[in-house]
């Protein structure tokens, strides 16, 4: 049966070529769209790992800070106390500027002996960082002031980094190298989605601020009580307070949840536009395929009449025509899959192979369904052809 169909198609190869090209291109469009959707969906289903409610981010620039290390530490300790004592502010942490949902990035390789994890995000923050952002520990604990006295400064690593560096042993107590400094791991934290709901969290390591990072620190995170979170008057007071403490400074207060929303929006808008454009392209293709199949059947009335006359049932004819479309679709899909499979093989983007495989399966199913739908009506029409009328025509 299949060989017969293939022969029929091969005989009219020139005729079917354009249809194959059309289905092939549609497959590529659908494949890129589903890859994106599957990637987003899988990330969306993972827990956020961050509680973004009631958090302010303060950016401050151009502050004249004390040069001496001791007075610099004192400067920050005092600022911490003063902020913490302000009614309405629940927790304060000084952090590097790559805060959740920001465009800033600080990546480097993190390693132990010869094993190196490239492109690991390095986040710096004081001891209150995790509790302020509501991050959950997988094992071990977050670093405290006491850890600073040890031989190595402490570090907390994310689950993904732990899997890469210490797949089959405990990470706690191990020493890792971050930017040429050695740190001792004290805990493993659950992955936090720093780039919004739809992006992967990536590998991460959290370290306390050293002296040089304190010198160039420009970012403070504050957890405030829900009652004053949206109170512009209270925010204005804190702003004024900070301006008067840090003379001649530029200050900006941002709301973390707003930034979260706008980052998600930024991720979702291109998908929506692509979705609309692809939907119209596919409707276009579906209508076109339907038209061409329909017309072909009208042209093959003689052949179909003959088949009916020598004993083929309406069902047989129907099956044959749908089968033909399916074979054409298969040819196009084989070609399409050849190209699609290059993405996971060549690691074109930094995305898990399984995402591509799922997307490929979904796209193949979708194209088959589309072609099936487009050929049902023409097939039915063909099945209804009476041999007598059809043969009479020619």
């Amino acid at each position, binding site marked *: 049966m299949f060989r017969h169909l293939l022969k029929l198609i091969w005989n009219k190869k020139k005729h079917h070529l*354009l*249809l194959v*090209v*059309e289905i092939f*291109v*549609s497959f*590529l*469009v659908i494949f890129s769209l589903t890859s994106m959707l599957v990637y987003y969906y899988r990330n969306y289903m993972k827990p956020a790992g961050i509680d973004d409610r009631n958090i302010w981010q303060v*950016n401050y*620039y*151009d502050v004249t800070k004390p040069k001496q290390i001791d007075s610099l530490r004192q400067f920050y300790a005092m600022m911490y106390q003063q902020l913490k004592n302000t009614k309405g502010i629940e927790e304060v942490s000084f952090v590097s500027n790559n805060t959740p949902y920001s465009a800033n990035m600080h990546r480097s390789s993190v390693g132990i002996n010869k094993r190196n994890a490239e492109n690991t995000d390095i986040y710096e923050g004081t001891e209150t960082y995790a509790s302020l952002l509501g991050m959950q520990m997988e094992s071990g604990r977050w670093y405290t002031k006491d850890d600073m006295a040890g031989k190595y400064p402490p570090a907390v690593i994310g689950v993904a980094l732990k899997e890469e560096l210490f797949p089959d042993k405990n990470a706690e107590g191990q020493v890792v190298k971050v930017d040429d400094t050695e740190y001792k791991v004290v805990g493993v934290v659950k992955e936090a989605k720093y780039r919004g709901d739809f992006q992967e969290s990536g590998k991460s390591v959290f370290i306390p601020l050293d002296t040089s990072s304190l010198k160039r620190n420009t970012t403070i995170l504050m957890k405030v009580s829900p009652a004053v979170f949206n109170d*512009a*008057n209270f*925010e*204005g007071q804190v*702003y004024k307070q900070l*301006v*008067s403490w840090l*003379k*001649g*400074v*530029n*200050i*900006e*207060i*941002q709301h973390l949840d707003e930034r979260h929303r706008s980052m998600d929006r930024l991720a979702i*808008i291109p998908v929506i536009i692509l979705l609309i*454009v692809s939907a*119209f*392209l596919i*409707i*276009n*293709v579906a*209508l*076109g395929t339907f*038209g*061409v199949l329909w*017309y072909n059947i009208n*042209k093959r009335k003689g052949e179909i009449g003959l088949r009916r006359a020598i004993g083929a049932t309406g069902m047989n004819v129907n099956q044959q025509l749908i089968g033909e479309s399916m074979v054409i679709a298969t040819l196009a899909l084989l070609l399409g899959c050849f190209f699609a499979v290059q993405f996971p093989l060549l690691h074109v983007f930094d995305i898990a192979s399984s995402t591509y495989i799922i997307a490929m399966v979904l796209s193949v199913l979708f194209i088959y369904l589309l072609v099936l739908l487009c050929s049902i009506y023409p097939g039915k029409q063909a099945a209804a052809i009476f041999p007598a009328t059809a043969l009479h025509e020619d």
Partner: protein
Amino acid sequence: MLKNYFKIAIAVLKRRKFFTFISLFGISFTLATLLVLTSFLDKVINDEYPDAKRSRSIYVTGIEERGKGTRSSSALSLGYVNKYILHMKTPAAIAFHSMQIGTNAYHNGKKISVNYKFVNSVFWDIMEFDFLQGKPFSAQQVNSLDKVAVISQDLSDAYFGIGEPAVGKYLEVGNDKYRISGVVKNVPATAYMLNGDMYIPYTLSQDNPNEQTYFGSWNAVLLARSKSDMPLIQKEYEDIIARLPHSDKRFTKTLSNADEYLDAYMRAGNQDGKSKTWIYTALGIFVFLIVLLPVVNLVNINITRIMERSSEIAVRKAFGATANTLVYQFIVENIILTLLGGLFGLLLAQFFLWILNGAALLTNVHLTLNLTVLFTGLLICLIFGFLSGVYPAWRMSRFPIIKALKA
């Protein structure tokens, strides 16, 4: 002759309404998508507010230094602008400005986000801002560290009330009160190098004008006397970079470019010049895919339709019509079809733009269908019609007469 073709085309369109619908649907949607894209690009490339002298302006947006395994890249420092750019001889005028700096203003129990920029006074000479109220600040005010500001209409409306006069009033940001010297029309977010809510004298910045580092947050705009002077300026800047001492021993190579507008726009801080090619490629692939599917679809349908007309074609051939005449006729018919589709596409595009503008994805960006866009649309229609007509027409012209007449 054309009139005849037109009549035939309309008759054919009426014959099989379903196929006509498919063709028109494909064409109009494709065209609408391309029109929206064109409208956006037109906004980016051709909207000359506020830098109306764009065609003879050169933009320096950043500097990058590289060494073995290390690389630093950022906008310029004030020291660098002072020491190297302000001493250039070929430009007629040199403006410089900082990148946007975010802060908040709290006023009447309301929080207002403010993005401000430090600028020099030449900035106002090179840029042609629409002043709705007041005027720019002068060189003298800049030199005497006056706390004056030019603000956008949006900020004026938010802080002083909609439509209220703002000139001479004070706006409080941080520890300082700034006297408003002028209010300007909003700059769209697409002009990302120049937009801001508030412009203040650069002398108020904390940056040290004699700092040694090259890396900071400043950009410069160099105005040429005429278009022909632009290569001279670029040459002079190249020479400066070639002679520039490295800011640190680690570095062995310096990259910085004096660009024309579009190059600077697409560079977006990347001094390598690769981002431009990348953007063009991505855009090209997108347009190619958008156009490819409908064209193939249309070719498919056209071939089907021609087969239907085989007897007509055969008769015409029998009466002596040459292959060329038939090809010509079919292409004209197809172009008529695409133009008709284009008309629907125009309406569809207007509808899309209405939705996009309503969604306000980019602040102060209002996309419209102007003459440039319409002209591009017409061009796309013609190319589209031609592309999707050529192959079927060629197939048609080689149609065997006898076979067709027999049927």
